[in-house]
């Protein structure tokens, strides 16, 4: 097809405008809250940054998580589910003591997703690793595969579930990054509790958003993953380990 000069200049202007505006449009995409009828995309990747130096000897994160998600104990520590736990570390050589919360690390290459025979253990497009309880057959292979011991099997009948958090006997579960809250535009219960009542050690955000606090801190300050040798690219990062 042949263009005259006017058409060519017009097209050029449109193309230039598009090239200038496109990055800005992408930013707007990230800033707006996702409406409920849109699917999640890989544009966002949710993550956590935990500063173990600020982490004090409390467990408000654990209490808040289990309260939010209806995870009740039955006085049987071996079989009771735990979505998050405080881990105490003592260096064998130096004696240095520290504590940190440990939960599902929401890996980019999750071993639990690789091994699930039915595909019930899956990674959502925005990085949250979940268990689709409709398809979970309770084989517990994902629990064998998780390097962080993040998953729990529900060993007894469950009643009094929270409406936002279905859980039932015979399936496997783990930290969902409070996906029901995240989808509403809120932050996970553990982060909220730590900020309000704890050591302000936890930060939640979009790892892909260059304007977010978590991105900027990860870029500016040193941080590490647990078991970096496994090359899983976890969504949960720690400082001071």
């Amino acid at each position, binding site marked *: 097809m042949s263009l005259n000069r006017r058409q060519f200049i017009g097209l050029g202007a449109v193309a230039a405008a598009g090239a200038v505006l496109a990055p800005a449009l992408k930013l707007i995409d990230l800033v707006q809250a996702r*409406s409920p009828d849109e699917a999640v995309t890989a544009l966002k990747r949710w993550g956590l940054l935990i500063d173990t130096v600020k982490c004090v000897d409390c467990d408000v994160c654990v209490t808040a998580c289990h309260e939010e998600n209806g995870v009740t104990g039955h006085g049987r520590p071996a079989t009771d589910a735990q979505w998050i736990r405080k881990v105490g570390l003592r260096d064998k050589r130096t004696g240095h003591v520290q504590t940190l919360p440990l939960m599902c690390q929401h890996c980019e290459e999750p071993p639990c997703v690789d091994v699930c025979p039915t595909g019930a253990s899956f990674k959502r*497009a925005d990085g949250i690793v979940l268990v689709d309880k409709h398809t979970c057959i309770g084989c517990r292979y994902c629990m064998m595969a998780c390097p962080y011991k993040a998953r729990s099997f529900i060993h007894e009948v469950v009643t009094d579930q929270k*409406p936002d958090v*279905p859980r039932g006997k015979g399936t496997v579960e783990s930290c969902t990054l409070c996906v029901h809250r995240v989808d509403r535009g809120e932050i996970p219960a553990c982060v909220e509790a730590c900020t309000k009542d704890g050591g302000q050690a936890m930060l939640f955000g979009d790892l892909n958003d260059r304007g977010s606090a978590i991105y900027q801190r990860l870029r500016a300050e040193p941080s590490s993953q647990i078991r970096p040798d496994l090359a899983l690219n976890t969504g949960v990062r720690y400082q001071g380990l």
Partner: protein
Amino acid sequence: MLGPAVKSDCDMTPFTVGLLTVLLMTAGPAVAEDKKPARVVLPTVKIEKGEQCVEPTDEMRRNHMNMILHQRDRTVHEGIRTVKHSLKNCIDCHANPKTNSVIGKDGFCASCHTYAAVSMDCFECHSPSPRKDAAGGKPATSRLDMQRDQLQRVTAPKPLAAGAPVKGAVP
């Protein structure tokens, strides 16, 4: 020589016996229907909230299972949480206000499913009770309310608890 009293080309005895059996079996209940109560308790379908359901009744009766199956995959895997076909929304409306549940005695889901003898797996995991007003939002009571709900969530993100940092701000 012993044999049937009437000799014919084909033996009609099995056919006659069968026909009589079928007639008696169907006639019995048909005649008795008006006199005896049904042996299985008919479902209690008591709609207490809202003017109408999200879909027409006969479509719901036939297809609610397909809607649930389809919607659950969209919600779990894609994060699509439209209110219209959300299970929580169904329960918010249909829960029996006395028992606060859709299962158990006079439960909306349970009574029909018991009558039809179709087992359902949902409430092994899902809560059968409606949401309280706090964090999850009020149950929508009509189609208009649902639309209003949806609009509110899109335009005005829920305020965080006091003291919590706004997502994205430097702490």
